[in-house]
């Protein structure tokens, strides 16, 4: 009965998910939503000029300050910010664990601001939540934890048992049903947390720093599970994080928060390729290691005194093949000395830094031709060095200390099918 209730408030017939009797939904249409501007679809979550202030007078803290956001149905929406940026408060406004000071929160087309407590509890049961510290009930077994929201929703014992078995199989913990939380590893606990959050068949899942307490390997597993929840069950996910890698590997769109405000919102790919707000640039800097930092560049220049250029690689705009074709056509020797191409939002993204060796005029005509196809940054030569303005900006910013200088970086543990190529190597030959 709870399953049917979940879909009642979605008047939009075309997007209306089939009643969920099982885990898998028949129509995968919702997973297309991120790629589709979907102006007709009712958003999953809408925040309209939402503010949350704690305390008053001098001691007032504006945790969330006039934020307007739309989370589309079926997408994975990231909210990134440093600690204290207000993102955890923001996510708690969505399921009314915190009440707004002003503004309006709309979930599945229903204004939840100002609803009486009973109705608010109903809304909450349609929204799953996953926590950084898992927050499992230590007095209950794994199965008992997953069954808890079903008891709250009034499911019968038989239906609960069937649903719990199904969910534990989905998260790969069928054999741990009778274990207690303290007998599990962090990753297993979070998988129980996710199973529990999915139990009452929510349409929305809120993940509050769900991977921040986990090691890189486990983080990768949990993020993969979240992506599976999104793709296979069509559940809209809001991911709160302070790690740009999480956004890069998992989210479709992202909002960057700073001091309670959303300073940038957009498609993850767009934010990565052209971050405009300072905070966005710093976060992108923490997740991209393909451009040499100042320190790395200095070492590169010692080894490669010739003309260095960084060539951006984007979807559609330019590919590595343009670079190599033009090198041949202009008879310029090039060797790749740094860089990497990986995926952002499942699309290729990165850059290659190349040392060019040829008489000056041939290099100039090569660069002119290349610039028509790709975003090229001239780093000059060891004798006449130039800065990459994007890297310089990162080094200068408050987050400069975090600017990527990834010598000896063991490789990044996140992401789906991402190959980091040419990492700090001389694959191009000398």
């Amino acid at each position: 009965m709870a399953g049917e209730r979940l879909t009642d408030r979605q008047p939009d017939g075309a997007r209306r998910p089939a009643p969920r009797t099982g885990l898998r939904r028949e129509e995968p249409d919702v997973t297309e939503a991120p790629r589709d501007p979907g102006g007709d679809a009712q958003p999953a979550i809408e925040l309209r000029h939402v503010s949350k202030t704690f305390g008053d007078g001098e001691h007032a803290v504006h945790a969330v300050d006039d934020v307007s956001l739309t989370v589309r149905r079926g997408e994975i929406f990231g909210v990134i910010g440093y600690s204290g940026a207000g993102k955890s408060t923001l996510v708690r406004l969505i399921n009314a664990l915190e009440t707004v000071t002003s503004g309006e929160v709309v979930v599945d087309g229903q204004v939840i601001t100002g609803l009486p407590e009973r109705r608010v509890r109903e809304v909450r049961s349609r929204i799953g939540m996953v926590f950084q510290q898992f927050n499992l009930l230590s007095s209950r077994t794994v199965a008992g934890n997953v069954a808890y929201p079903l008891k709250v929703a009034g499911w019968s014992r038989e239906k609960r048992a069937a649903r719990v078995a199904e969910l534990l199989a989905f998260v790969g913990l069928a054999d741990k049903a009778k274990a207690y939380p303290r007998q599990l590893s962090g990753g297993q606990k979070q998988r129980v947390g996710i199973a529990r959050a999915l139990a009452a068949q929510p349409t929305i899942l809120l993940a509050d720093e769900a991977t921040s307490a986990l090691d890189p390997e486990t983080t990768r597993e949990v993020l993969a599970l979240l992506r599976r929840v999104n793709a296979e069950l069509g559940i809209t996910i809001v991911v709160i994080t302070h790690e740009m890698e999480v956004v890069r590997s998992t989210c479709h769109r992202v909002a960057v928060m700073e001091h309670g405000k959303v300073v940038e919102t957009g498609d993850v790919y767009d934010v990565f390729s052209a971050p405009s707000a300072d905070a966005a640039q710093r976060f992108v800097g923490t997740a991209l290691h393909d451009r040499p930092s100042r320190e790395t560049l200095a070492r590169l220049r010692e080894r490669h005194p010739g003309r260095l250029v960084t060539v951006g690689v984007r979807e559609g705009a330019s590919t590595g093949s343009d670079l190599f074709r033009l090198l041949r056509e202009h008879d310029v020797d090039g060797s790749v000395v740094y860089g990497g191409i990986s995926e952002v939002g499942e699309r290729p993204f990165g850059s290659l830094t190349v040392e060019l060796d040829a008489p000056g005029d041939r290099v100039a005509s090569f660069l002119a031709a290349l610039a028509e196809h790709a975003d090229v940054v001239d780093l000059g030569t060891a004798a006449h060095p130039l800065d990459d303005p994007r890297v310089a900006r990162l080094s200068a910013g408050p987050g400069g200390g975090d600017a990527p200088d990834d010598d000896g970086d063991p490789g990044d543990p996140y992401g789906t099918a991402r190959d980091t190529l040419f990492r700090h190597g001389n694959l191009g030959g000398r």
Partner: protein
Amino acid sequence: MNRDWSQLWPILVESFGQTLQMVSVALLTGGLAGLALGIALYVTRRGNLLENRWVFGVLNVLVNVVRPIPFIIFVTLLGPVTLQVVGTTLGTEAFIFPLSVMTAFGTSRIVEQNLVGIDPGVVEAARAMGASSWRIITTVLVPEALAPLILGYTFLFIAVLDMSAIAGIIGGGGLGNFAIVYGYQRYNWGVVVVTVLVIIAIVQVAQLLGNWLARKALHR
């Protein structure tokens, strides 16, 4: 001495029964009332489930006023109320009433302290699942704090046993009274020693039982 004991044994057994009666009734009624009071203190605290500054303030002051009153004085202070409730101010039954009331106030603090130790995240998770406050109290707060609560109640059992020793002042019975009347006041140290040994044995059994139950509740 032997002749003494042949007369004293039946009285000791009767006193043992009276002690068990006083302590179990007080723990049951006072323990339950104290559980409710302790939960009320916890949930109305600032930042908690049913935050309410006024309710918390009143309860907090009430508990702080009652608890420091020496029990022997509390028994007489409560006399008029005892008369209304029990119908008499004398005897073991009359003593059980103030004992239960004091037990409730003592229990409340122990319950409150144990609940404070619960991870607030677990409560938040239950709220996020749409659970009502009452459901959270009964299915999250109490079960999550069960092991320390069991140890707390074990501690209380011993404290109540201790308080019950002064039942004699209003004509009540029990082991404490037996030791005072038949031992201490007659310079019969043998009686005192035997009674104290019986009390120690009860305490040992209670503590062993409490530890065992708490360990089970911890799921280790």
